[in-house]
C-alpha cells in the first residue's frame, strides 16, 4: 500500500513541484532583471494552452519520442520515490534525454538537427559527472540504494562538498541555464531559434515541457540527498542551490560547446577526483 502512495506521490510531484519551481524561477529571474514577471502559475497556463492546440508534426515518430521522453522522466522520479537504485534511476532519466534528442533528429530542419547535436554534447558533458556523484555517494554510504542512503546518519554534503559542486555543473546544464543553454533555452531569440525544440509543437511540446518538470524534480531530489538528515537542512540546501542557479543564469553569457566540454570536464573531473580520492583515503 505504502508503495502505491509513493508511486502516486512521484507522479504528482513532477507536475506540481516542477511547475511551481519553474514559475518561481521566472518570477525571480524577472525581478533580477527589474521586471515584474508572470504569475506563479504561468507555466501551468502555458502547458494547458499547448495541450489544447492542434496536433502538428513534421514526422510521426516525434510523437513517439515525446511520449517516451515523458514516460522515462516520470519513471525516473517514481523510482526515486520508491527508493530504488540510484544508478538505475540515472540510466532511466538518460533514456528520456535521448528520446528528446531523437525526436529532434527525426526532423530535417537544420535548427532541430544542430540543436539535437548540441544537446548530445550537453549530455556527453554532464553524464560522467552525474556518474561520479553517484559513485561518491556509494563510496560514502556503501550502497546505491536510496533506501540505504537515506538511512546514513550524517549529511553527505560534509564528505562530498566537491562532488556537490560537480552536481551543480550538471544541474546548470540540465536546467538549460546560461552559460550552458546551447541546445535550446527559455528565450526564443537565439541563433538556433528554439534549437532542439524547434519542430516540437502543440501538445507534443507540452509533453516535453511536463517531462522537463519531472527532470527538474529528479535533479532536486538528487541534491536533496546531500542533506537528507533533516527537512530544514534539505530545504535550505535546495533553495540556496536553486537561487545560485538563477544568479549564474543571469550573470553569464552563453558559451560554445567546445568551451563547455573542455571547461566542465576539466573542472568536473578534477573536483570529482579530489573528492573521490579523499573518500578512498578515508576508507
Amino acid at each position, binding site marked *: 500500500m505504502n508503495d502505491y502512495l509513493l508511486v502516486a506521490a512521484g507522479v504528482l510531484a513532477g507536475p506540481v513541484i516542477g511547475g511551481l519551481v519553474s514559475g518561481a524561477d521566472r518570477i525571480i529571474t524577472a525581478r533580477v532583471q527589474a521586471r515584474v514577471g508572470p504569475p506563479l502559475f504561468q507555466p501551468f497556463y502555458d502547458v494547458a494552452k499547448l495541450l489544447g492546440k492542434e496536433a502538428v508534426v513534421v514526422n510521426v515518430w516525434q510523437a*513517439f519520442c515525446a*511520449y517516451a521522453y515523458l514516460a522515462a522522466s516520470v519513471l525516473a522520479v517514481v523510482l526515486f520515490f520508491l527508493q*530504488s537504485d540510484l544508478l538505475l534511476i540515472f540510466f532511466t532519466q538518460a533514456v528520456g534525454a535521448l528520446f528528446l534528442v531523437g525526436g529532434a533528429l527525426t526532423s530535417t530542419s537544420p535548427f532541430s538537427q544542430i540543436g539535437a547535436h548540441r544537446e548530445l554534447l550537453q549530455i556527453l558533458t554532464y553524464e560522467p559527472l552525474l556518474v561520479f556523484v553517484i559513485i561518491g555517494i556509494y563510496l560514502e554510504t556503501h550502497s546505491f540504494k536510496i533506501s540505504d542512503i537515506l538511512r546514513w546518519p550524517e549529511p553527505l554534503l560534509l564528505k562530498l562538498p566537491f562532488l556537490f559542486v560537480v552536481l551543480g555543473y550538471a544541474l546548470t546544464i540540465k536546467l538549460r541555464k546560461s552559460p550552458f543553454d546551447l541546445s535550446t533555452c527559455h528565450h526564443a531569440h537565439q541563433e538556433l531559434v528554439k534549437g532542439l525544440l524547434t519542430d516540437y509543437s502543440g501538445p507534443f511540446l507540452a509533453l516535453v515541457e511536463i517531462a522537463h518538470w519531472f527532470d527538474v524534480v529528479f535533479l532536486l531530489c538528487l541534491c536533496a540527498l546531500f542533506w537528507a538528515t533533516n527537512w530544514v537542512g534539505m530545504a535550505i540546501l535546495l533553495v540556496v542551490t536553486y537561487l545560485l542557479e538563477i544568479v549564474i543564469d543571469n550573470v553569464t553569457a552563453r558559451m560554445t560547446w567546445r568551451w563547455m566540454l573542455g571547461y566542465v570536464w576539466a573542472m568536473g573531473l578534477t573536483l570529482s577526483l579530489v573528492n573521490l580520492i579523499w573518500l578512498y583515503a578515508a576508507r
Partner: protein
Amino acid sequence: MVNELTTILVLLPFVSAVLIYLIRVGAIRSLIVLVTGSALIVCSLLLIPYAPFTWSPHTLLGVPLHGVVQVADFALLLIILYFGYKHRNLVIQLLSVLQIITMVYLEFFVVKGPISTDIFYCDNLSLIMVLVASIVGSLICFQAIPYMKNHEHHLHLEKSKQPQFFFVMILFLGAMNGVVLANDMTFFYFFFELTTLCSFLLIGHDATEIATKNAVRALWMNSLGGAAFAIAIVFIYYDLGHLDMQQVIRTGPVAGLYVLPVALLVFSAFTKSAQFPFQSWLLGAMVAPTPVSALLHSSTMVKVGVYFVLRLAPAIQLSFLSQTLAVFGAFSFLAAAALAIGQSNGKKVLAYSTISNLGLIFACAGINTPEAITAGILLIMFHAVVKALLFLCVGTIEQNIDSRDIEDMRGVYAKMPVTALITVMGVIMMIMPPFGVLLSKWMAIEAAARNIYAIIMIGLGGALTVMYWARWAGTLMSDPFAGRFKAETQPVLTWFVLLGLCVGGGVMSVAIPWLYVLLVVPALGGAYVPPFTVREGILESSFGSFPVVPLCIVAAIGFLVSIWAVRRAAKARIVSPYLSGAQTSEVGTFRGPMNQPVKAWARNYYLNSIFGEERLTTWVNLGAGVLLTLMMGGVL
C-alpha cells in the same frame, strides 16, 4: 548423450564444410548450411542440462585423437607459413616458424606422458559460449545465404566463390565450439589458431588489394598472440608438468615464474580481442562481407579472448596482473568509444564499439569481484546478440543504398522502414534499460566503483558511447515525410534472422533473472559467491538492485502508449520542418537569393578535431603500450 552432443557440436561443422566445398550446387549448399545450423542450435540447447561435464575421447575413428590434433596443428602452422610466403610477409613467416619450433620442442622434447586428464571440459561459462556460437553463429550463416547471393550479383563474378566462403564460415563454427570446450591446452591452441586462419581467409575473401592487405595484417597480429600462447604453455608445462586448464587455474599462481605465462596468455587474449594497440586488424577486417564481421569480428571469435581471460580470472584474483587488467580494459573501453565518435563509417563505428565492449569485459575480469564477473558474462551474451543484429542490419542497408556511411543513411526509414526500425531497436538495446547490455553496464559500474582508475574511465566512456549510438539512430529516422508506412521486401531468411535476433535480444532481457540463476550462477563456479538474489524478477545485491521484470513491464507499457501516439499522429496535420518561414513547396528547401530554391541540410557532428582517428590513434596506442608494458613488466 553428452559425448554425442559434443561430437556433433565440434565435428559436424567440419564434415558439413567439406561437403559444401565438394558439392558446388547452390541449393544443396544452402540446404547443408540450414541443416547444419539447425542441428547446432538444437544440440547446443540440449547440452544445457548436462553442464558441467568432462569428456576425454582417446581415439577418433580408431586413430589416437591426440595424434590427429598434433598432425592437424602442424599442418595448420605450415599453411600459415605458406600464406606468409605467398604474401611475402616476414613477420608471419617468423612467427609461424617460431610456433612450429616451440610446438616441436614441447611435443617431442618436453612432454612425457599424458598432457592432461580431461580433453574437453564444459562448465556453464563454456556452455554460454557454445550457445552464443551455435545459435547466433548459425543465424548469421543463415542470413549469409541471401546476403552472399546479392553480394556476388553485385560484384558480377563469373565463377561463384560461395563454396569457399561457406566452407570457412561453417568450419569456423566447429573451431569456435572446439576452442571453448577444450580443456587440454594443446587442443585449445589448435582451435585458437584455426579461428585465426578462418578469420584470415574470410577477411581476404573478396581478394581486392585492400582485402588482402588487411587479411595479412590480421594474420600477423593474431600470430603474435598465437606465439605468445605457445610459449606460455611451454612455461606452464615446465612449472606444473601438465596442461590441464582446469588444474592450472585451480593451482593458482604459486611460484613467481608461473605468473609470466599467465600474463602471456592474457596478452594473446588481447590480440584475439583486438585490444589497443592491436585494434587495427579488427578495423581492417571490416572490408569483409558483413556476415563475416557479424560472426567472427563481433559476436564470436573476438569473444574468445575475453572468454579465456574470464576463465583465468579466479587464478589471478587480487594480483597485480588483475589490477592492471582492470585499468587496461577500462582504458580500452574509453579510447574505443572516443574513436567511434569521430567515425561516420557505420561498420567502423560498430568495430570500435566492439573493441570498447570487449575492453569493458576485460575490465570486469580485472576487477574480479563476483558482480564484475557476472557483468562480464552477461555482456558476452547480450553483446553477441545485439551486435550481430546491428551488423546484419548495416549489411542489409548497405546492399540497398550502396553505402555504409552514416550520412548516407539519413532518412533510410523512408526507403526501408522495417530494417530502419529494427536497427533503431538494436541501438536502443545497446544503450537503454531495461535491456541486457545496459544492465551489464550498470552491473559493471557498480562493481568498478571501488577502483578509482577504472571507474573514471568507464564513466567517461559510457557517456561517449551514448553519443555515437543516439546520433546514428536519429539519423536513420531523419525524414521530413511522414504518415505512410510501406514495408520493403527482403528475402525470407533475412527477415527471419533480423527479427529473430531483435526479438531474441528483447526476450533475453526480460529473462535475465532466470538466465542469471540457470546459466550465470553455475558459471561463477566455486571461485565466486553468487552476488545477486532474485526475488519477483528483481536482481538485488547488497548494495544495488535492478527490478528487471517490473521495469520491463513498465517499459513495455510506455512503448505501447508511444506507438499508439504514433498511430494517432499519423492522422494529425503534417507540416514541413521549420525553415524560418522561407520554405518552398518542395520539402527541405527554402527560397534563397533570386528566388531560387536552396536545399537546407546539416551534417552530424563527428568532432574530428577532437575525436578523429588521425588525432587520437597515436596517443591511444601509446597509452595502451604503456599499460601493456606495465602489465607484462609488473609480473617479472
